[in-house]
């Protein structure tokens, strides 16, 4: 069994993983500070912050031989018999020196810097640096510049770790960024007339350990320590990127990627990154509506739900059929409760999948271990990243639920045709889509086909204008639940915002319609229930999912392993995030 000695303590190395000293030490609770190293980028060892004392233990004699020089932890493989010393005076002295160098030309403008609070320089100078400063020379001030419409580069704050440059060369392979000039005048820059505008460009802001690369969208809008972070899933496409949805005072301020080796690695796309704005939209439905005497008027939610329940039950009682159109923006739990409700009213009721929005074609990057790489690549596991053309989070999940209740999946086109042909008396239209998918003509055709129309949505759509009852549902940020991504991975998404005034989360709507008691209902209980009922979801049978989600039955069983990763300065200090 391979073992490693860290600060005198012997630990067993995990099998089948190639780790460097930083990763191995982190596993056992020893933090080695670093800047330039990132697990998915090649190792260049240029910040020199992670230098530690390294040695090896002779397996036969047990004698420990140390390397006389300090060695960067990022380029040191954690092998059997490796000895690491991270807390010696020599190491501390070195870290203090590197901090002094890094801050020599730093403007120390933390009060106006967005990175403050999640900054590698702040954290490490507190932990490893020194309070007074011996540098009395004139500072080198490299200029501030725009590298794209969305990203600003404050070169004076830059520590030249080149993470951003390596990202554009190794991951997106577009190579927009470069280093120019030499020595202390070295700076990151774009090539003239070639802005940093690839679909993953925003990730350089997350990669930047200091406040050099900043998102103009977030610029000076919030102090990061006021933001509460919620482990969520992006709903802008069927990739299902793991994100941290960051909220303060009832509004979302930004999305940041969360590591998931099976889905999005460390990245999110710019479309997903800025999709948070839809949850802050002032035009979202802010009340429920009921049609009385031909006019839609606001009504209390309980009144609307009673009315909807009574009307649909009376249709069923009279032998009429209702069709439920369930959108791929609903969570698995919501789809399950909605389907249970409608099928419970009348087993002849029909369930169909809502429109699956598609935009363009799938776009993907496939980094490998050589293209664009410069340094040591032996620790890297290259993983592809895809932005799906399918712009909804849960087609597979809702389909799996529908297929359990209904033989064969009915798509939106055939459902609309059947509604327009007058086959049904009632239509329950549960949308929550970010963009409306019915225009006025389609809405009129649907309306004309049924006697009673319920629309559950977050926006004022043409169909909602024609409905008999409008229920204000939850946006992606206001609901908790599970989604199944394009690869069949079931993932849990936390709610980031409280339900806005006048609305009720969809899960509660369906629970109340079902007559369940007591509301509010928890998505975990529903997940456990449906996992017992629908075999496809058996993996979630106790209502809990692993941190990285789990593949549903029939999906390719990509491994469940992996360890959550977050740069030290992005973590809550003191309490590390516990995932799910």
């Amino acid at each position: 069994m391979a073992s490693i000695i860290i600060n005198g303590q012997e630990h067993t190395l995990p099998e089948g993983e190639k780790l460097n000293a930083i990763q191995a030490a982190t596993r056992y609770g020893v933090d080695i500070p670093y800047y330039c190293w990132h697990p998915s980028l090649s190792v260049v060892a240029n910040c020199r912050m992670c230098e530690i004392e390294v040695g090896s233990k002779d397996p036969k004699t047990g004698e420990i031989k140390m390397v006389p020089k300090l060695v960067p932890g990022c380029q040191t493989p954690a092998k059997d018999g490796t000895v690491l010393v991270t807390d010696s005076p020599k190491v501390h002295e070195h870290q203090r020196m590197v901090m002094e160098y890094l801050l020599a030309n730093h403007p120390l403008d933390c009060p106006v810097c967005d990175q403050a609070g999640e900054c590698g320089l702040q954290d490490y100078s507190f932990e490893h640096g020194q309070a007074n400063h011996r540098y009395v020379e004139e500072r080198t001030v490299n200029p501030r510049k725009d590298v794209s419409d969305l990203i600003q580069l404050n070169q004076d704050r830059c520590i030249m770790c080149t993470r951003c440059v390596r990202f554009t060369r190794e991951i997106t392979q577009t190579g927009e960024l470069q280093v120019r000039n030499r020595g202390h005048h070295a700076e990151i820059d774009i090539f003239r007339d070639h802005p940093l505008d690839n679909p993953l460009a925003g990730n350089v802001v997350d990669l930047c350990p200091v406040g050099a690369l900043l998102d103009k969208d977030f610029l000076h809008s919030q102090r990061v320590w006021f933001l509460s972070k919620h482990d969520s899933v992006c709903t802008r496409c069927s990739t299902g990127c793991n994100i941290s949805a960051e909220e303060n005072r009832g509004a979302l301020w930004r999305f940041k990627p969360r590591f998931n080796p099976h889905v999005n690695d460390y990245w999110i796309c710019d479309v997903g990154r800025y999709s948070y704005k839809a949850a802050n939209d002032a035009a979202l439905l802010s009340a429920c509506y009921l049609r009385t005497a031909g006019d839609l008027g606001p009504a209390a939610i309980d009144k609307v739900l009673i009315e909807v329940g009574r009307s649909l039950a009376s249709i069923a009682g009279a032998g009429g059929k209702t069709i439920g159109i369930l959108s791929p923006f609903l969570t698995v739990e919501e789809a399950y409760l909605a389907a249970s409700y409608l099928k419970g009213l009348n087993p002849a009721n029909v369930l169909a999948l809502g429109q699956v929005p598609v935009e363009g074609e799938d776009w993907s990057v496939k980094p490998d271990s050589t293209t664009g790489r410069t340094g040591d690549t032996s620790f890297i596991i290259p993983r592809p990243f895809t932005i799906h053309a399918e712009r909804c989070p849960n087609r597979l999940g809702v389909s799996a639920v529908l297929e359990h209740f209904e033989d064969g999946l009915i798509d939106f086109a055939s459902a609309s045709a059947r509604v327009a042909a007058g086959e049904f008396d009632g239509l329950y239209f549960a949308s929550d889509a970010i963009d409306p998918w019915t225009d006025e003509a389609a809405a009129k055709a649907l309306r004309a086909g049924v006697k009673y129309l319920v629309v559950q949505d977050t926006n004022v759509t043409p169909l909602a204008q024609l409905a008999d009852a409008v229920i204000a549902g939850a946006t992606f940020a206001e609901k908790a639940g599970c989604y199944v991504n394009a690869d069949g991975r079931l993932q849990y998404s936390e709610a980031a915002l409280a339900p806005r005034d006048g609305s009720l989360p969809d899960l509660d709507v369906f629970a109340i319609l079902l007559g369940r008691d007591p509301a509010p209902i928890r998505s975990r209980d529903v997940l456990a229930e449906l996992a017992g009922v629908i075999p496809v979801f058996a993996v979630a049978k106790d209502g809990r999912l692993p941190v990285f989600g789990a593949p549903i039955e029939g999906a390719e069983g990509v491994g469940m392993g992996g360890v959550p990763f977050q740069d030290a300065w992005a973590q809550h200090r003191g309490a590390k995030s516990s995932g799910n």
Partner: protein
Amino acid sequence: MADFEPVLSRNWNVPDSHTLPVYESRGGYQSARKALTTMDPDKVVALVKESELRGRGGAGFPCGLKWSFLPKDRKETFMCINADESEPATFNNRLLMERDPHQLIEGIILGCFATKASTAYLYIRYEYINAYRILEKAVAEARAAGFLGKDILGSGFNLEIYVHRGAGAYICGEETGLIESLEGKRGWPRIKPPFPAIEGAFRKPTVVNNVETLCCVPHIVERGADWFKSIGTPKSYGPKLYCISGHVNKQVCVELPLGVTARELIEVHGGGVWKGRKAKLVVPGGISMGFLTADELDTKLDFEDIRKPGCLGLGTAAVTVMDDHTSIVDYLYNTTRFFAHESCGQCTPCREGCAWIYKTMKRIKGGGGRLVDLDIMLQLASNMGMMPGTTICGLADGASWPIRNAMAKLRPELEDYINTHQEGVRQITPLQEAIFAGQLAEPNLISISLPILNKV
């Protein structure tokens, strides 16, 4: 030493020495013929190993050992010839390339034959336009005469030489920086391991040799390892080109056995210090190696003895002499400026440290120095470089050595300069002084000093 016969520079003063007919008429390409037709590659490696030829580029790494690090099962090997001679005051490679390019080409043929490399990249310094033209012509001549190309001299050995011009960076003389630059990237040295012998240019096993090292190889093949070891001092065998420049009457490049003393170089070969003055400092091998003072002139300039008075190494054996009118401050100002300018900007300690030291030197020179600056500079210099392990390559060592030497050998002069040269406008302000001390600039306003979290 009277019987020493120059070999590397023997053709330099022959008219048209850069052409193939002249070179051949003086016994050229006989070693290549001998090796390619009668020896196998391993035998050449063994011969060079036996001769204990040490790299002439600066570090003095044994050449044969370097060649034997290549993996046995390699498919393709590259040879890179380091002609990016950018160490200040060094010009021996330039003369070797301009005056006798075919000797170099023969050395490359032998080196490539020994390492089984069929592609050689000659990375030449941007500023050496003349040498570049001569080499291009010489390579074409050699190719036309069948010394390059396919099946050289009927041995089945193929070789192509590409002459590649650098873009003017000192750091590209570092072997991995050179490889990066050759690949078309920014010349930032790579981390080791993997060493170039395992994964070098284009991710293939690569040997990087200096021009002068390769020029020695034909002579070793021709005359044998014993001849080579009969020249020089123990552990430093063979002839060496010494470049003498600075305050001497005659600035020359002379070929001498390794181990000649600095005094002999100045007095005999450089014609003495100019204007009848005395030598104050002698830089033994490019400014990154530190310096010798007047008392240390009897030091032997070879790979071993030069370390005794605290120099970093022999370097390129570019001896720069400074007379007793030279101020140590001017010398340090120039060296620190050079390294601050040439630091590639990759590793934090070198990027920031070189600039910091340079700015401090500039302030001291201008008349704003403080005695404490000397301690800070010494501490910074001792903190950076490959020797304490804080940088990827050795540039920072080179930058720090002159400072370390100056502090150890001539500190009284520096202190004297600071004490006697003070100009108000150059001095640091009370505010800067307060920040430096970790205190408020006007402590009377608030009765506490700044909180000090962890004092040094």
